[in-house]
């Protein structure tokens, strides 16, 4: 499957594999923090930053655009926490506001850029639905390095994450700073979003963060295994989706990655060994049978 692809395509596949793994890992953390939709909001909020970076650089300058994306996503995160902490507007509404207003601003800027002379060819539209094929090999190498950094941060701080997520009071007692852990978490989340938006697009990036983690939960209860499995599912969906999207010309990558991930989710939901629908059904049948047997036995005993 890999052999006949061009050199560039192989790099693109590698980068979506690493991206999927990184977002599978971070997605697990978000799932346990019950912040799945925060990733959706922040990826939408990254759009104006990308375009602004383009405007500042005057050309498609990847590092500058990614820095812009990171800044606007962080600004969005900060505004959400400011709105929820200082007014009675709830978190879901605050996320909806930031998501739509930032995205609206992004569309304004995007339309403006597209109307500039030569702006229509900038390929900025690709950031909305993702176009892995549009990545040049220099971008791809950067993305690989950044994704590897994310994977390392999650791997090296494994014990700290576990404490932070499951027993933050105890973690504080041990001298772990919750504020710092939250800051690192947000930073890593934004980093994954930023490196993902070119391949998956700002609208569907959230799916790659949410779906692998939820799917992994249906196979195991152990946090370590969920992390590993979620990374594997994320990587697999990233690669599969990218591969399928290269089969047709102009097919967007993001939606295919999402479909790959949700197919894995459906399989996990149905056949998962831990709380999968089939297992639960069989267990219920088994229990029912035992109850009937027990009742019969009792009746027999009473009869004697």
């Amino acid at each position: 499957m890999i052999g006949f692809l061009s050199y560039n395509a192989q790099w693109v596949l590698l980068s979506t594999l690493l991206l999927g793994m990184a977002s599978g890992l971070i997605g697990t953390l978000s799932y346990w923090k019950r912040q799945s939709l925060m990733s959706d909001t922040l990826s939408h909020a990254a759009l104006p930053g990308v375009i602004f970076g383009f405007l500042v650089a005057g050309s498609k300058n990847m590092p500058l655009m990614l820095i812009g994306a990171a800044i606007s996503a962080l600004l969005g995160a900060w505004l959400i926490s400011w709105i929820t902490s200082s007014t009675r507007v709830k978190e879901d509404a605050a996320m909806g506001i930031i998501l739509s207003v930032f995205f609206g601003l992004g569309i304004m800027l995007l339309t403006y850029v597209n109307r500039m002379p030569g702006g229509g060819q900038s390929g900025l539209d690709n950031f909305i639905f993702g176009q892995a094929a549009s990545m040049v090999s220099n971008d791809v190498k950067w993305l690989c390095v950044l994704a590897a950094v994310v994977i390392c941060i999650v791997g090296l701080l494994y014990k700290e994450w576990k404490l932070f997520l499951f027993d933050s009071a105890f973690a504080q007692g041990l001298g772990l700073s919750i504020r710092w852990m939250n800051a690192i978490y947000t930073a890593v989340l934004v980093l994954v979003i930023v490196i993902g938006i070119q391949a998956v697009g700002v609208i569907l990036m959230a799916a790659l963060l949410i779906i692998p983690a939820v799917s992994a939960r249906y196979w195991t209860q152990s946090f370590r295994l969920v992390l590993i499995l979620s990374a594997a599912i994320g990587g697999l969906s990233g690669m599969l989706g990218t591969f399928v999207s290269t089969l047709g010309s102009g097919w967007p990558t993001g939606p295919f990655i999402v479909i790959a991930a949700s197919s894995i989710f459906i399989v996990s939901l149905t056949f998962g060994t831990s709380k999968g629908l089939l297992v639960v059904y069989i267990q219920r049948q088994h229990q029912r049978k035992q109850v009937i047997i027990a009742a019969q036995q009792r009746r027999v005993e009473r009869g004697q």
Partner: protein
Amino acid sequence: MSYTGWILLTASLVGLSCGLVGVLLILRRMAMMADAISHTVLLGIVVAYLVTQQLSGVHMLIGATVAGLVTALLIQWFHQVGVQQEASIGIVFTTLFAIGVILIATKVGNAHLDVKHTLMGEITFIPWEKVNVPLLGEIPEAVVILLFVLLVVLFFVVAFYKEWKLTSFDPIFAASIGIPVTLMHYVFMSLVSLTSVAAFDAVGAIMVIAMLITPAAAAYLWTDKLYMMLILSSLFGVLSAFMGYYGAVWLDTSISGAMAFATGIIFAISFLIAPRYGIIAKCRKIQVAQD
């Protein structure tokens, strides 16, 4: 009516219906549900197109309302089998939206139905797609649909005002005195999808979310009365439609993007100066307490 007049009327109608529905969304803490439904409406429209092979308003309205209800049901079902509510929303809408985008990209993509349209809408084309309505003469189709949706929304909100109030603020009490809370939930979800689809065709998905959530959240900062909140929220919706349109003309940019941004400006102003719940009022209160 002039070209600009039709556009402003369309956007104001969107602002009115979304403003009304949005208030209930905020109070029921279902803002992200609106995010989900406004995305999956796309799939409903594409499927309606594939089945009927035409782009007529009525088919799309039906297709999209069904898609919205399916979204609500699926989210509920995944939640019941053990997925967190938030994650369940995230899975359902991204998947259905992705299917919609793929169908457009591979099968039905044409001049009328392209991916960009779904996000930004094509409000600039609305004044040209006119239909003949008895008594009123030539009216853009979108205006007719939006008027119809506004009437439906207005009817449901006014007719069941007390029930909405009870089920939004105290669902347990509402259930105890015999109000069908679950039925109300699905009626409400249908209203959200009906509003989303009518607005979606005119102004695009993102603008729908902005109009549904932001004006209502801004109104929430100004008042404690439900009827007042409904009025304010719709007014803010209309105001952002006007601000957005003239802003977009001035900057020569996307109209629906600018309208979404305008709702943000109104929220930011409310956030600062609203009496009692605004930032400045709060700071002053703290100062008074310190003195």
